[in-house]
Structure formats: C-alpha cells, structure tokens
C-alpha cells in the first residue's frame, strides 16, 4: 500500500486492553444497580434479601431452553438480542473512566448517539423475529418511542457539545472546569435523563416491554437470548447514566477522591435516579409520551440550545 490512510492517532485513550475490561466494568455497575433494585423490590413486597436475585436470574436464564415459535425469523431474532448489549458497550467506549476513555474519538458524542440508536434496530428485530403478535406490537411501540425521543436526546447531547465547542468528550469535560454544565443547561440535563430512559425503554417509558403486552418485544425471548436482551437493556441504561457524567456533571472532577472514583459515584447516583423513577412512576401510554416529546421536549431543547449558543457567541466563541 503506497498511500497509507491518515487516521488521527488516539491521543488520550486508555491502553488497548481496557477495551476488554470495559464490558466487565459496565456489567459490574449494572449488576450492582440491578441487585439494589431487586432488594428494594423484595423489601416493598415484605420479603427478606433480594440482593442475590440477579445471580439467580442469570443462572436460570443461562440454563434455560430456547423457546421455538412457528415460522420464526431466527436470524433477525437472535441478532436483535445480541445487538443490544454490543451497542451498549460500543456506546460506552467514548466515556472517560476517570480522565481517559477507551477510545478518544474526535466525534465522541455523535458516536455515542449512533450506537444508542442501534437499540432501535435491536428491539424491533427482537420483536419481529418470533412471529408473534404481542412482541411485534412491542417492537413497533419502541420505534415510535425512539423516534419521538431521539430528537430531544440529540438536542440535549448537542447542547453540551455546543457549550464546549467540541464533539470530543474530553473537551466537554475540560470546558466544565469552572462550572458544571448541569448549572448552565439544566433543561438539557433533565431532558437527557428522560430521553435516556426512553431510549433504554426504562421506567415510565417501558411500554415496548410492558405487562399489557405480556412482555412486549421480550415476550417470546427465553434462555440466553432473554439474558442478552434484558441484560443489554441494563447495560444501555448504565452507559447512558455514565454518559451524563462527562456531559453535564463535570466528569471526574471532585475533591479528595481520584477521578475514577468520582466518575463511579456520579454514575451510580444518576443510575439510582433512573432506577428510582421506574419505581416511582407508572408506565404511561405511548400516545401520551410521544406527544409530550414532540410538543414539549423538542421546543424546550431547541430553546436551550439557542440560549447556550448565544452565550457561547457572546463570550467570543469561534
């Protein structure tokens, strides 16, 4: 090859073997959140313990048999279950674990969003695959929900990038040295959390896998596929919560503790808010949520982006 392609060298990334550790880190964080969630549920139901529920569930699903349905589309069905956790891990590669991410991409926030969107395809495929009405309805629900919440999500992320005048996650953290973005752009932060829950079909947005559809897109999944799908959903939620830290909460900034510990603490706090929201609010009908997104959240985030860009311009940016 006489003409080597110029790929910008990764400047501030972690060593390559962190790419292997990253899924593990995500799983540990998601696992602890799931354990606490199960413990809270057990306590609410008056049962003791609950912390071991995730371990029981994982074991049960690992040894479980695959359900077969008539005239299924196995290719897309399996792909749907596999893509979800893979997308979550890929999304997480741009999140600084401490001060440096696994991959320091110049277009980090766009990458994060693009990988999150893979969840659409995953849930739809998982809903389509088994040739079952309820799961297909769940898949369609998620497409409508993803479409409605992708725009506010994108605007919220872009607002943070706008404030830092960079798409690189490291630059966004650097821009928050004096003041966290959550103070400058509270609307974007709240919308990011709300839409992150919607993109992970979590909390009040879990209509795609809700009980009125007998589990929706996940209704026919069993065994390892179900583990990948539901585990992938936890990972996606964890990745979104972890992304809120560099975007709005100053990354690893904080007194006393090292950067990685602060990232962990902040991630767990955001995750706790999301988990709490699911317990606090009931699932709300799709048509209601969709209209709220289009009519309220989109204008709000556009206005927030406009305000931030005017401030950036007034401070002499670019």
């Amino acid at each position, binding site marked *: *090859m006489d003409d080597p*392609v110029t790929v910008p060298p990764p400047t501030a990334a972690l060593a390559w073997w962190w790419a292997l550790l990253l899924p593990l880190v995500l799983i540990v964080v998601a696992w602890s959140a799931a354990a606490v969630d199960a413990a809270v549920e057990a306590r609410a139901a008056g049962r003791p313990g609950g912390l071991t529920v995730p371990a029981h569930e994982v074991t049960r699903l690992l040894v479980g048999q695959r359900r077969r349905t008539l005239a299924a589309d196995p290719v897309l069905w399996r*792909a749907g279950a596999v893509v979800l956790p893979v997308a979550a891990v890929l999304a997480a590669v741009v999140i600084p674990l401490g001060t440096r991410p696994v991959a320091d991409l*110049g277009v980090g926030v*766009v990458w994060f969003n693009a990988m999150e969107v893979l969840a659409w*395809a995953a849930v*739809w495929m998982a809903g389509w695959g088994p040739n079952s009405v309820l799961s297909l309805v769940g898949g369609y629900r998620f497409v409508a929900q993803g479409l409605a919440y992708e725009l506010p999500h994108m605007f919220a992320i872009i607002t943070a990038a706008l404030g830092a005048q960079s798409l690189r996650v490291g630059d966004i953290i650097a821009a928050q040295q004096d003041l966290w973005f959550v103070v400058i752009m509270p609307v974007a932060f709240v919308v990011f959390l709300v839409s992150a829950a919607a993109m992970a079909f979590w909390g009040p947005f879990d209509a795609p896998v809700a009980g009125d559809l007998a589990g929706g897109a996940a209704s026919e999944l069993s065994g390892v596929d179900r583990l990948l799908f539901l585990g992938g959903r936890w990972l996606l939620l964890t990745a979104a919560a972890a992304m809120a830290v560099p975007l709005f909460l100053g990354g690893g900034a904080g007194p006393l503790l090292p950067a990685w510990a602060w990232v962990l603490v902040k991630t767990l706090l955001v995750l706790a808010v999301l988990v709490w929201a699911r317990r606090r609010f009931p699932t709300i009908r799709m048509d209601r949520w969709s*209209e709220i997104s289009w009519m309220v959240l989109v204008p709000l985030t556009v206005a927030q982006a406009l305000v931030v860009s005017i401030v950036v311009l007034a401070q002499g940016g670019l």
Partner: protein
Amino acid sequence: MVVTFWVLALAAVVFGFGVFRLNSMAQVTFSLLASFLAVAGLVLLLGLGYLGVVIVLMMVIEMVIMAIFMIMYMMNPAGLMPMAMYHNKPGAMTISVGTFVLLATGILLVDWPQRTGAPAPDPTFALGRALMGEQMLTMMTLGITLFATIVATVVLSTGRGRYDRLGDDLDARSADDPLGGGVGR
C-alpha cells in the same frame, strides 16, 4: 487497512445483492442497512470520522422506519410464500450490467490526477467551517428543502385535514383526533 477495505467493500456489495435476493422484507431492509454500515466503515477508513458516524446514525433510523413501510405495503412481508414481483427483468439486468461495464471502463481507463494537498488536521472542523462559511448557501438550501419535505409529506400522507379535526367552520373548541395525546388538547 487493505484487508479492512476488501472486507467492507465485499460486505457492501454482497449485502446490496441481498436486498434483491432475500424473500423476507424485514431481512431485505436489514441487508440494506448492513450495506450502508459497510459503506460507513469505508468512509471512516478514509478518515471522515464525522460523516461515517452520521451515516451510521441516519441509516439505522432510516432503515428501521423503512422496515415499517416495507411491511405495511408488501403483500408478503415475512417471505413465507416466496413470490417474484419483477417487471422487465432481462431489460433491467442488461441496463444495469451495461452501466457497470461503462462505469468500470471509465474508472480503469481514466488517468486520475495526482493527489493535491493533504486533509485538514480535523476534517470535521473543516466541514463545519465550510458549511457555515463558503457553503452557507448549500446548507440553507438543504434546510429549506428539508422543511418543505416535512410539510409536503405530511400534507400528502395524512388522511385527515384541518376540517376533519376542527369542523367545517374550523370553530371546534378542541380538535377531534382519533388519539388523545399527552398535552391535553
């Protein structure tokens, strides 16, 4: 790098073939998506980070929406009863193979000019500068086009106009919609 190129280029073409070979419309759609993702990989390989990732983002969204329409308008969405829905297959084959031969001849015979200059250190930044600078007119045209598309497509595809929603004199106090929505109108 060369290996990556061959893998991605082959994947793009093979999945492209898949679009017209597979029976299940859902698989057809995702085959097209795979072809797009391979091309996005090639664009990334050429150092266009932003455009490559944006192609991934856009095409995933576009193809998932495409899948819905595919299933809505096809007689046989799951491909459980394979059927051929072609017209003028030999003619189409002749024209497309002819086009490929013509293009390939041109590609191989043209004496391509030498590469001039080097990419900007940050192509994304250069693109943004261009779109907000000398290519501003292009960007504004795109914006207006997209806006016109939104209005035109909604008008074309909706079955209900304002008279259906607000009455013949447009004086109904609240719109008569089949679904309520969450803002309480």
